Structure formats: structure tokens, C-alpha cells
């Protein structure tokens, strides 16, 4: 039987797939693979890496005009404010480009929705959405951003559906970026650093820990 002594520490863990991902033949480059595997960051399995690579190698889905329109719309949906930056600063247009390749079900609604928007603006202002003035753009957005207001207006309902889709994609792209996560104030992802619910929060909801809970459940090694 062939023994693979040297591979034993790379077995049954993330390391095994890191080796595969680096494309090593057994017996080759083990050292580098092991070092590579200890780098902090996102861990991906071989098939995930292949999928990502395939996505990266796909030709661009949106043309320049479409991406420019997505960028303008994104920054209307998530503008810079006192707390955080805008959608485009968080690279939301790249996220949307990625997502429509990752989930092709978005391709027709996004492409068609952008076209709907341009046709609507052409009829109204004789210009594409992108070429409209800021004021004209907001005028159109106000018509399709509030589903209740637009209910039953057959000339607007498809636009409302499109705006809901791009609002969803923009919001999820933004709030899963570093900037968006900070904006929300997500305070987790700190292993072994949990001291329980803060005192003032407990008080606000009229609750308290028992001494035993404090002792047994809420102590950790620094």
C-alpha cells in the first residue's frame, strides 16, 4: 500500500482543499500549500473556486450605458450621508454585474427594466434616464419608488417592479460591503469576546442576569 505520510496533516480539513485549490500534485509544493492555507481570508473549496473563476472569465453582461445608469440609480437609492458613503463608493455596480451572472434570473428583469426606464424618460423628457437632469431623474424615481402610490397605474407598475429589484440589489450589495456593515453597526465576528448583553440594554428591557449566570455563562479567557 502506498503511504502518504507527508499528507497526513493536510487531511480532513480546510487544508486539504487549499492544497487542491493551489493545484498541487501530491508530493509537490506541500510547504507552500500549507503556508497558503494559513493565510487569513475567505476559504473556498475547489468547486467554488472554479465557479468563481468561470464567473470572472465571463464577458461583461451590462454595457457601458447600462452600468452608468445602474451607478446613477444606485447612488439615488443609497447616497452618501453623515454615517456612510454611497452605493458606488461601496462598489455596488460591480456587485450587481457579478450577481446577474451568478443568478441569471436577474438578467432579463434588470436589462429590460433599464430599457423600460429609458423608454419612459424618452417619452417624458426626450432623453435617456442617464441624460436627464437630476431633477428629472428624481421626478421619475418618485413615480416608481412607492408601490402603494403607483398601485393600479398600468403605465407605472412594471417600473415599480424594476425599482424594487434594483433597490433590493443595491441595498444588499451595500449592506454586505465593509462600508455598509459599519453603517449598520454590526459588532460581531469577534470570537471569544462576548460579555453578555450590556447593562443599560438589560435595564431598558427590564431584565437582569442572575449572579450565577454572570459567573458561569459570561466569563471568558481574555
Amino acid at each position: 500500500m502506498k503511504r502518504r505520510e507527508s499528507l497526513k496533516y493536510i487531511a480532513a480539513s480546510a487544508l486539504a482543499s487549499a492544497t487542491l485549490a493551489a493545484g498541487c500534485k501530491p508530493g509537490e509544493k506541500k510547504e507552500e500549500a500549507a503556508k497558503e492555507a494559513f493565510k487569513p481570508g475567505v476559504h473556498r473549496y475547489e468547486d467554488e473556486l472554479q465557479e468563481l473563476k468561470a464567473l470572472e472569465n465571463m464577458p461583461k453582461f451590462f454595457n457601458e450605458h447600462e452600468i452608468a445608469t445602474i451607478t446613477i440609480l444606485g447612488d439615488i437609492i443609497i447616497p452618501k450621508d453623515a454615517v456612510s458613503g454611497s452605493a458606488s463608493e461601496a462598489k455596488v455596480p460591480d456587485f450587481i454585474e457579478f450577481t446577474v451572472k451568478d443568478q441569471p434570473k436577474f438578467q432579463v428583469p434588470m436589462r429590460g427594466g433599464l430599457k423600460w426606464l429609458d423608454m419612459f424618460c424618452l417619452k417624458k423628457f426626450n432623453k435617456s434616464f442617464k441624460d436627464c437632469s437630476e431633477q428629472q431623474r428624481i421626478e421619475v424615481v418618485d413615480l416608481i419608488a412607492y408601490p402603494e402610490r403607483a398601485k393600479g397605474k398600468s403605465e407605472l407598475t412594471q417600473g415599480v417592479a424594476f425599482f424594487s429589484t434594483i433597490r433590493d440589489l443595491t441595498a444588499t450589495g451595500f449592506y454586505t460591503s465593509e462600508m455598509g456593515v459599519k453603517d449598520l453597526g454590526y459588532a460581531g465576528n469577534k470570537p471569544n469576546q462576548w460579555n453578555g448583553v450590556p447593562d443599560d440594554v438589560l435595564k431598558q428591557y427590564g431584565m437582569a442576569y442572575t449572579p450565577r449566570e454572570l459567573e458561569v455563562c459570561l466569563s471568558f479567557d481574555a
Partner: protein
Amino acid sequence: MAKADFSSPNVLIYPALKTGKLEVIADAMAREVITDDNGKATGVSYVSKEDMLEYQVDGRVVILAASACETARLLLNSKSQRHPNGLANSSNVVGKYLQDSNGTAMGGYLPELFGRKRYNEDGVGGMHVYTPWWLDNKKLDFPRGYHIEYWGGFGQPAYGFGMGMQGINGKYAVNGKKKEAGGYGASLKEDQRYFYGANVGMAGRGEAVAFEHNKCEIDPNTVDKYGIPVLRFDVTQSDHEIKQAKHMKETFREMMHNMGAVITWGDDGTPENKYGLDKPGYIIHEAGTARMGDNAKTSALNKWSQAHDCNNLFCVDGSQFTSQADKNITWTILALSMRASEYIIDEMKKQNL
């Protein structure tokens, strides 16, 4: 560093490697268990995923822990003159009694938690709060029970976060101001912050009744890329499971209501959709495919996870379960594995193995 988390590499494999007595062969796809003329297990044959060549590893004892279905597959694929129906299968139960936990879920948000102060809530959000089965089945129209798992709070935003805002921001005053559903801009950002961390959900995980007719078996016509015959599945949920799911939904609705929560999804149980009962396999708690029992005619393994038909073969995963109770299965798998291991050592010392 606290080791409050469990993972098999961290907690089992690395410490075992440190003893110097364990050798791991990575990227080995087990094909079958090899037996000798007396029907005893002598080792395992495998194909290397690296070079696609065939190898064999010999052992005094063979222990399968490939997960419930894969262990059944290995047993059924290990045919020999002494074990013509597959290994450990003179009872013909291998692959049968396949079961998963019953699952269904419901969720929404708690208005009381809108706009609350931020703090680290990781580890609190996916709570396996101990909710033991608390009811008397005599008063119910289904057997067995279920536990409930809860989640919610300031989770790390992932894909999907922030979507569907138009479904909530028109219904509740945001920081005291009533708004129109939908919207955009600085106002939308305010809404996202305000509603963050107020979501709450719960899922039931219940015991399904094990039936012989629910099974996996070798597909006579299909092999995988290693040429190993694959399994095919035939599992139908019974009325017991559907009634339990109905009860789960009613319980969740009551809890959400009494908490003051607003239900936004999962409250759509009807007889037609089996009260939202998840499909078999969806909860990923497969078990039952090589059940243990005292009677060698109706079970594959004895109470030590040892094959009735082959005393140096053990199956220590979910396959040995006769039922999985109303808890998730992994702790019990670990406990049974530990028990089987101690038994093996003992039997080896006594020269019985």
C-alpha cells in the same frame, strides 16, 4: 482561547494525530469493505482521487463512519460469497428505515426591538435554546415530539440583507415618523438601520416515524465517476409527520403572537403544502439505514454498533439509529461512537477481535 465550539478536525482529528498513532489517507474514496472466506472484514479498498488508481488498506477491525446513506451504500456494494446481499445485510434491512428530522419554520420581527442599541450578539442569534418536548402525546393526534430552535438579532449581514424593505417600512413609524412603503435615499438608509436586528424566527426539528418502506438502495443502472454504483431514494412522509408539522406551525404562531412579534413568513400552512413540512433530506439528519437491535433477523448491528453478521465490522454514524428522537443527531452519533470505541478496545484486549 475558549473551545466552546466543536468541529471534528479541531476537537478529534488533530489531537488524535498528536498521539502519533493515527494515519490519515486523504482523497481516498472507499469503494467497498473487503472480507475473507470466513466472512470477516479484512480491510477497505479505495480509489485515490489524485491518481485514480486502486488501493487497499488492511485492518483488524473495519469501522464505517461515512454518514448514514454512504455507509449503507458501502455495505450494499460490499457483496461477496459469504455476504451475497451486501455486507451486514442478511436481515435485508440495510438502506431501509431511512429517516430525517421533521422540519418547518416561521419568522418575522419584533417591533419592540426596532432601533435598538448595537452590541455584539453573535452566538446568541442561532440559539439552540433547550426546549424539550413538553406535551403529552396521549392528548395529541401524532406520535413523538419535536424541539424548537430560535434565531434573530444583530447577525452579520449576508446576501439578501436589506431586501424587501417596501414590505415593512410603510407599516411602522421609523424613529417616530410614518413613511410611505418603499422609497430611497437617506430615508431608506435610516430605515435599514432602524429595522436591523429586530428579526426573529424559529424552526421545529421533530422525530419522524421510521418505516421500512422509506429507503435508499443501489441504483442498478448508475455509477459515479469512480465507477461505484450510486444510491437511489424512495422516501414518503406519513400522516404522522404532516400532523406534527401542523402542530409546529400552531405552536410557532402562538409564540410569535404572545411575544408581540409580527409574522412575515412561514404562516402559510395548509393541508395541500403539508403545513410547510420540509422535504425528506432537507434537514440533513439522515439516519436509520443500518439499524441496531438485539434480533439479527430484524437489525444490521447489535447494541455495540457491531455487525451481527461480521463481528469485526462497526458502523458508528447515523446509520445505526432506530429512531432519532426529537433532538438533532450529532451528539448521539458522537456518544455512540465513543461507546463503540471503548467496546472495541475492550474486545481487542480480551482477544475477541
